């Protein structure tokens, strides 16, 4: 899907977080890297209308996030950094059903979709488990499943591996690599960008570098150490 930012600035009070960013995202795998405070998180939240631009426009397909956020959110899924805050219902299967119910999927279809999605990620056994009793890795997979079950065309990941141990990090990398959808991945985990089509480096609210990982990652490392 084509996501286009045109002259987008975001200001919170006196602070400018993003400064006149224009970029068009069409590739299947897009990485976004940058130091803390570079505006990464705000950039990601612009893509599904969780943050609206103070100036400029964000178009997702033909929809404007400022006016069509509802429709955009069912097309652009968002996986947050901390799954503790993303899993919102008491049981795993209830949490997966949440987004489906909100988007008006017929009630009869919901249990089947939920089971199928859990099985897809190899976590079918978690269906009836209470959310608070899951391990960290399980939580991240459940949070991802709850987004994928809505069948978004694009998935935005906000530092998905930061809170995971090595084993779960590798597992999540494999899951992201296998996604058929377009994915925009914000990360500090540079290894995650292997095989990506494009990497944006954000610095102080601007895109400082834009290119394939083979040149973008060395550029980022050279400029930030």
């Amino acid at each position, binding site marked *: 899907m084509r996501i286009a930012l045109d002259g987008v600035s975001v200001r919170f009070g006196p602070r400018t977080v993003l400064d006149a960013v224009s970029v068009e995202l069409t590739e299947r795998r897009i990485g976004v890297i940058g130091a803390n405070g570079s505006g990464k998180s705000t950039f990601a939240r612009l893509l599904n209308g*969780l943050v609206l631009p103070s100036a400029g426009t964000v178009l997702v397909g033909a*929809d404007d996030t400022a006016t069509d956020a509802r429709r955009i959110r069912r097309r652009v899924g968002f996986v947050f950094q901390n799954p503790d805050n993303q899993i919102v219902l008491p049981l795993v299967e209830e949490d997966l059903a949440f*987004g489906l119910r909100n988007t008006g999927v017929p009630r009869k279809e919901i249990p089947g979709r939920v089971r199928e999605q859990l099985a897809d990620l190899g976590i079918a056994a978690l269906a009836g488990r209470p959310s608070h009793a899951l391990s960290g890795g399980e939580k991240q997979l459940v949070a991802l499943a709850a987004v994928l079950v*809505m069948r978004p065309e694009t998935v935005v990941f906000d530092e998905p591996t930061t809170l995971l141990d090595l084993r779960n990090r590798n597992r999540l990398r494999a899951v992201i690599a296998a996604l058929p959808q377009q994915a925009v991945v914000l990360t500090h985990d540079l290894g995650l960008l292997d095989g990506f089509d494009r990497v944006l480096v954000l610095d102080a609210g601007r895109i400082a570098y834009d290119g394939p990982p083979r040149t973008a990652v060395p550029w980022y490392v050279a400029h930030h150490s």
Partner: protein
Amino acid sequence: MRMSLYVPGTSPLHRVPAGWKLAVLLLCGVAVFLTRSVTLLGPAAGLALVLLLTVRAPREQLARQLRGPLWVLAAVVAVAALSESGHAALVVGLRLVILLLTALSVTLTTRTSELQGVLEVMLRPLDRAGLVNAPAVALAVSLALRFIPEVFQQFQEIREAQAARGLRGSPLALVVPLVIRVLRSAEDIAAAIDARCYPPARSRHPDRDDRLSGKAPG
């Protein structure tokens, strides 16, 4: 942590639909205040006790639910006996016993999800009249159930951290960080809920969004 008082079972009371149980309970609550006759209230209290025993709840569960209320009951009966009459004390005591035991029987035999179902049905007319946002109430209940164990766990983490720093027992050192953590996570949780298309499209105009094709609705 067990988050429900429901005791699985197959007793007659388990099989009665939740709506009926609640309706009878409500009537019972009104009825006990309509009479002062011990010959009526006495057998009724006995019946309530039998009802509770048919549920076959574990003894420790019964004890936990009854201990507190029985202390209050004892105090109330004692005061009534001293200040008014033995008859008055008996009437008050029997009324409270009936209310306590019947309500407990219903609580023990009805799943939270069934009660939530009854709640939804009761809220429906209010929702239609625009007085209550029923989906929001339902979500609030689920969110609370999801986050009670989480908040309790955070509590214990903070308590351990404070104990390690020698701040044991200071309620300020315990509660201030907890409240701040809660306020912080609320922002993320709300964003996560919005990102998954909450609030649901109202069935009155089913998914307006879908019928507009790619044009901003102005």
